């Protein structure tokens, strides 16, 4: 009975999103499809757009509107020409919207990324700058957090650039605080529904007992010149009802509690839940407590949500919160996080560190995987092995979203910081020359990494306005968590599961 109910809900979800219409009279609804489905142009660039209208007995076609930069010309009921401005100084998204003349509720939109000539499309700047609370009163600095600006566009065409978004290669999907969105974008982001008045929500729990709760809505994500269309994102906001008991911990629904305006999850997977949340891939259940359909009154039921061809082995939609990089038209097999070493050489603290995030691996002249790189293949948990202090740590990983190096070390068991700092090591003096060997999950290749451990309390107190610390470390259970300090002075590659880099299948980490 229960599974039938859930099946019906997901079926409805697929139907609604598939036809993309609402408010049409009974009968077969009118639909509009546009070609192309996305486009990228420079100054003076031209895009010819064609609309195909189905089930319109009046054959009235569409009318055209534009939001954002540029102009429309040569308008007919089935086509239009978009022209970018002659001068483009910053990258933005223009959205061409087609509206059915027979039924004004039926629309389709085409996001066009407009970039200055000569823009390197697959690079955006990133910064270890302390995050958004650096200017708060009192100021609060996010140590070893790397931040980026992300442009989000609603299907309505409303766009907004969100600064201070945490770059996280340890999670998947774009999650943004509703409180940071302007009213046009917020209104334009329409969450998925099941056709019975229930809205799709997502609960993501993190290891530090925090969780994010919010609706799931399709959006266009723009990073530099790269565009991910129809990509599910999580809009973080506390609902008017009680959050289900399966979603427990500290709710991080404000800038103050999240210490960021959002999280850009660009890890080694395409989907935040994947097969476990897909009914075709996991028919036996139980349904994970990750996605819920909730009524306006707050009755929530865990639900399956499909995650497309990769999950089901057959053509299927993907409504799960999805890695935006995976949905780029090009450069979509992974990312490189490039951060320089702290300056001057040998420093353990620095005010800010600026670097870049590069999209794609081996797809352009600027993102080749060097032949000298260590390419760590991963197990089914996206982990490799780190040999350290006579321990074989099989659950090891590289994660820009962890703000230190975290590993079990019997020799440091007595050097745990006191009180509320007990997630960090506080050795009496800096430990230098520690080494650990990373080994691919299949047993090769291997590479030895050396690192140091500062006293967390001493170094952060001595450098109260600095955001970057190269020797912060703490205890961990399970594997070696190579967090942001590992990234300083390295180009770190994260390749996505289900894609390939040359002949090498993802997922992998490389450096």
């Amino acid at each position, binding site marked *: 009975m229960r599974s039938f109910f859930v099946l019906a809900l997901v079926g409805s979800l697929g139907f609604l999103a598939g036809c993309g219409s609402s408010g049409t009279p009974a009968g077969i609804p009118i639909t509009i499809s546009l070609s192309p489905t996305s486009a990228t142009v420079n100054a003076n660039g031209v895009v010819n757009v064609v609309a195909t209208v189905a089930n319109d007995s009046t054959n009235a076609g569409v009318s055209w509107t534009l939001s954002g930069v540029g102009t429309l010309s040569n308008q007919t009921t089935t086509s239009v020409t978009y022209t970018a401005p002659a001068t483009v100084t910053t990258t933005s998204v223009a959205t061409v919207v087609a509206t059915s003349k027979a039924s004004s509720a039926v629309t389709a939109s085409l996001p066009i990324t407009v970039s200055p000539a000569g823009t390197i499309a697959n690079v955006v700047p990133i910064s270890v700058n302390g*995050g958004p*609370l650096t200017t708060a009163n009192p100021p*609060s*600095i*996010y*140590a*070893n*957090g790397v931040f980026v600006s992300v442009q989000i566009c609603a299907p309505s065409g409303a766009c907004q650039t969100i600064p201070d978004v945490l770059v996280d290669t*340890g*999670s*998947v999907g774009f999650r943004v605080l509703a409180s940071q969105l302007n009213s046009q974008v917020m209104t334009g982001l329409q969450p998925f529904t099941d056709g019975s008045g229930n809205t799709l929500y997502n609960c993501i*729990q*993190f*290891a*530090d*007992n*925090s969780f994010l709760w919010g609706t799931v809505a399709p959006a266009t994500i723009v990073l530099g010149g790269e565009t991910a269309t129809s990509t599910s994102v999580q809009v973080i906001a506390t609902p008017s009802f009680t959050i289900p*008991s399966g979603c*427990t*911990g*500290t709710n991080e629904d404000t800038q103050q*509690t999240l*210490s960021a305006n959002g999280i850009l*999850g660009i*890890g080694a*997977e395409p989907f*935040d*839940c*994947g097969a*476990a949340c897909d009914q075709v891939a996991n028919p036996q259940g*139980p349904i*994970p*407590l*990750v996605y819920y359909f909730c009524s306006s009154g707050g009755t929530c039921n865990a639900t399956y949500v499909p995650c497309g061809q990769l999950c089901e082995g057959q053509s299927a939609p993907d409504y799960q919160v999805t890695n935006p990089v995976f949905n780029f038209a090009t450069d979509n097999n992974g990312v490189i996080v490039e951060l320089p070493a702290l300056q001057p050489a040998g420093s353990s603290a620095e005010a800010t560190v600026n670097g870049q995030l590069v999209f794609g691996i081996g797809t352009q002249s600027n993102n080749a995987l060097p032949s000298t790189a260590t390419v760590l293949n991963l197990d089914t*948990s*996206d*982990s490799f092995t780190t040999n350290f202090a006579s321990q074989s740590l099989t*659950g090891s*990983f590289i*994660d820009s*979203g*962890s*703000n*230190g190096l*975290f590993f*079990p070390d019997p020799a440091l068991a007595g050097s*745990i910081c006191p009180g*509320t*700092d*007990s*997630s960090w090591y506080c050795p009496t003096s800096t430990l230098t020359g520690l080494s650990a060997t990373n080994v691919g999950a299949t047993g090769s290749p291997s590479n030895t990494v050396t690192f140091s451990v500062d006293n967390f309390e001493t170094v*952060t107190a001595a450098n109260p306005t600095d955001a970057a610390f190269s020797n912060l470390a*703490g*205890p*961990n*259970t*399970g*594997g070696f*968590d190579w*967090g942001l300090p590992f990234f300083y002075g390295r180009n770190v590659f994260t390749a996505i599961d289900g894609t390939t880099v040359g002949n090498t299948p993802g997922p992998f980490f490389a450096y």
Partner: protein
Amino acid sequence: MKLNSQISLSHASWMTIVLLMLALSLPALAALGGDVSSVQEDKAQMKGTLKTTESDAYTVHEITAAGNTIVKEYVSPAGKVFAITWHGQFIPNMQQLLGTYFDQYAQAAKEQRESHPGRHPLNIQQSGLVVQSGGHMRSYTGRAYVPDMVPQGVNVDALQ
């Protein structure tokens, strides 16, 4: 050996049903620090399957929940759950697993976050409660125990 394990599993299934029926009519019991019967509460809550193994020092109740998340509850000869470990795609329901210790855990986690913003694995080390929780999206690992309840001679760091 195989026959034995089948018998004990089948026995466990019957016990599960009986205890589940009992549990439904009783208030929820805490898992960590609670009686062995609280394991059934956790199993029911997680819609999981249960396997039990015994050693000299303790009994392990292993629950496999959604996403193949494996939760192990370690029960002392005194019949108390003295430690819990987890490993898998999802973090188990900590409120259910930690029971009366959950508030202490949540408060400690919150205080750590408020003293220094930033995301990282958690190590809570108090005289009455130790919780270690780490991993990344789609792979989480952790351990919680009550130091005073750990049977003599058991190395909690070796529990996985």
